[in-house]
C-alpha cells in the first residue's frame, strides 16, 4: 500500500486529492498547515509528499527545507505558474511541480512517474488469467506468453493500473506517447483494439462514447 502525505490548506482540495488517490488505492493523509505537515513528514512513514506552497504557519519552501533530508520524494502543488517559483522548488529538491487546477489523472500520472523513479510501484500485476511483470516486460495469459509491441504493453499496463477509470484518448496519448494532440487519437484506437484482441478483453476493455476507454475490474463484475 502506498501512503501519500497531502499538505494543503484548502480542505476541499485536500479532500479532492485524497479521493483521487483512493481510486488507485493509494492512502492519502491530510495536513492543513505547514507546521503540522512538516512534523508529519519527518516521521518518514510516507512514500510521497504532495506539498502546497502557500500555506499558513510555514510556506511550502520552508517545509521543503526542513524535510528534504528525510528522503521522501516531494511534488509541489501551486496556484502560481511562475518559472522562478518552479526553479526554486526543483532546486530545493522537489521531484515535480503541478500547477492548479489539474485533472485527476494528470495528478495520478505525475505521482506514478515519481513513485516509479523511487521503485515504489507494484512490479507484478494480475488481472484474471493475465499476469504482467512490468520490470521484465513479460505478459502471460494462462501462463502462455503473449507477444505485444512495447506501446501495446504500455497501454495494457496503464489500464491495469487505472482499473474502473474512464481514460480519454488524449490522456493515453500524453502518458504513453508523451505528446498531446488530438489528431493522433486513431493511433490510440488501433493499439487498444490490438490489446483487446491479443488478450481477449472484448468485454472488459470497453469503449465509452465521447470519452475513451475503461478497463473494468475483475472483482466487481
Amino acid at each position, binding site marked *: 500500500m502506498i501512503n501519500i502525505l497531502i499538505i494543503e490548506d484548502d480542505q*476541499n482540495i485536500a*479532500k*479532492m486529492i485524497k479521493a483521487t488517490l483512493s*481510486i488507485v488505492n493509494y492512502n492519502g493523509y491530510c495536513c492543513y498547515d505547514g507546521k503540522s505537515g512538516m512534523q508529519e513528514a519527518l516521521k518518514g512513514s510516507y512514500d510521497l509528499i504532495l506539498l502546497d506552497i*502557500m500555506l499558513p504557519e510555514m510556506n511550502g519552501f520552508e517545509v521543503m527545507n526542513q524535510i528534504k533530508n528525510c528522503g521522501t520524494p516531494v511534488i509541489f502543488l501551486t*496556484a502560481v505558474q511562475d518559472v522562478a517559483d518552479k526553479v526554486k522548488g526543483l532546486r530545493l529538491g522537489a521531484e515535480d511541480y503541478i500547477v492548479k487546477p489539474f485533472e*485527476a489523472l494528470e495528478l495520478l500520472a505525475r505521482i506514478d512517474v515519481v513513485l516509479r523513479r523511487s521503485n515504489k510501484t507494484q512490479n507484478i500485476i494480475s488481472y484474471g488469467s493475465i499476469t504482467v511483470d512490468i520490470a521484465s516486460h513479460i505478459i502471460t495469459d494462462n501462463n502462455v506468453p503473449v507477444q505485444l509491441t512495447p506501446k501495446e504493453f504500455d497501454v495494457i499496463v496503464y489500464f491495469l493500473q487505472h482499473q*474502473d477509470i474512464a481514460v480519454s484518448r488524449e490522456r493515453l496519448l500524453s502518458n504513453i506517447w508523451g505528446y498531446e494532440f488530438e489528431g493522433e487519437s486513431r493511433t490510440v484506437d488501433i493499439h487498444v483494439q490490438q490489446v483487446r484482441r491479443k488478450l481477449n478483453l472484448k468485454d472488459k476493455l470497453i469503449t465509452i462514447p465521447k*470519452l475513451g476507454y475503461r478497463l*473494468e475490474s475483475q472483482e466487481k463484475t
Partner: protein
Amino acid sequence: MKLWQKIFLSSLCLIIAAVNVISIVLLNNSHKLLIERERSHAINEYEYFAASFANTVVYERLKADKIMMTEEDIKKIAADIVSSRSQGQSAAAVYDSNKTLIESSALPELFGLDEFLSYISGIGTSVGDYYIKIFKCGDIHYMTVCSTLKIEDNLYLILTASDVSEIYALRSQQTDFVRKVSLISAAIISLILLVTIIFLLRPLSKLNTYTKAIAKGNYKIRIRKKGSHEFRELAENMNIMADSIQSHAARLEKIAEDRQTFIANLAHEMKTPLTSILGFADLLRIKRNVSDKERFEYANVIVEETKRLRSLSGKLMELIALGGTETDKKPVSLPSMIKETEAALTPILQKNSLSLACVSEDITIYADEELFKSLLYNIIENAIKASSIGQQITLRAAMTSGSAVIAISDQGIGMSQEDAKKVFEPFYMVDKSRSRKAGGAGLGLALCVKIAELHNAVLTIDSHLGQGTTVYIIVSGEECL
C-alpha cells in the same frame, strides 16, 4: 561654448579694453601738456630771436649812422643772426613780405618739405599772430613758430624751429611700457579670473552631476547647499524636486507592486476553488462506481466552491465598478442611513443572537447613499463574523474635531497588530478557513477602503486579540454639512 568660458572671455576682453583706453587717454593728455609747454617755450624763444633781430637792425643802423637800412644791410644782418641761431637742432629763417626767403639755417629736410612750403604761404601778414606747427622730418620732430614782424617800416616773416623729438620719443617709450604692463596684467588678471570663475561656478557642475544622477533614477541623492545665495536656492529647489520625484516614484512603485500582488492573489483565489471543482468533476466523470455518499460529497464541494467563485467575481465586479463610476453625492442624514443599514442586518443579527446598539448625533454628510450604506453594512457584517453568540456590537457616530467619526466596535475575537495592519489589503484573510466557510473572498475591506476614498474618508482599525475590534470611519469635515 561653456558658461565659464563665456564669462571668462567677455570679462577679460572688457578689462583689457578698459585698461588700454584709460592708459591711451592718460598718455595723450600728458603728451598734450608737454606740447603745450613746448609751445610757450618755442614762443619765448621766438620772441627772443625776433627781439634780438630787431635790436641788431637798430643797433647796426645807429652804428652806421644811417637813416634807413638798405635791403642789402638787412639781408646781411639776417644771415648773421640766423647763423648764430643755427646751433644743434635749432633753426631759423627770415622771409620778406613777399615770402621770399632772405636767409635760413642749413636744414633742407625741414625747409624743403612741401608741407612746410604750403604752411609758409598760408601765413597771414598781420603783426603779432603766431603760427605754430609741428613737422616730422624723418625721426625728428620740429616745432616751428612763425610771425610777421615790422622792422624799419618793412614787413618780414621770421620763423624759428626747435627740435621737440624728445616729447615724441617719450610718448613712444611710454606706449611701449603701457603695452608691456597691460600684457603682463592681462595675464595675471586672466589667471585670477579663471580661478575665481571656476571656483564660483563649481557648484554648477556639482548640480549638473546631481541632476544626471536623478535622471538615471537615483532619487535618494540630495545635494549639499553650498556656494553663493543663488546656488543654495537652486540646490534647495532641486532637493525639493528630488523629494517630490522620489515620493511620486515610490507611490507609482507601490501602486505597481499592489497591482502585482492583487493579480497574484486573484489568480490564487480563483485557482483554489477551480482546483476543487475540476478535481471532483473529473472524479465524477471518470470513476465507474461512485457511491451515493461520494456523489453527494463531491457535488456538494463543487456547489460550495462555485458559490465561492461567484462571490469572488461579484466582489471583483463591484471593486472594478467603484473604480470607474462617478459617485452620486447628495446631502444625506447619517442617522437615517444607520437606521436603514440596521434594518437590513436584522435577520443576520437575530440568526447569530447578537445585538446592535447605534448612537448617532444628527450629522448630515455629502455621500452616495447606496455606497455609504454598503460601507456601513460591510463593516458591521465583519463585526458580526468576528462575534460569538450573545455579544453586543456598538456603533457611535459623532463630530470630533471637525470630522464625522463613526466607530463600530465588537467584543469578538479581535486580531493581532500585524493582522490589523494588513487587513485592508485585498485578499488578506486573518483566518482563511474560517473566512472561506463564511463565504468571504477577502475583498470586503478592500471595497470599504475604495468607498471611503470616494467619500474623502479614512478607515482605521484598532484591535486586540481576544478583546474585540473597533473600526473608525473618519469622514473629513469638507464632506460634512
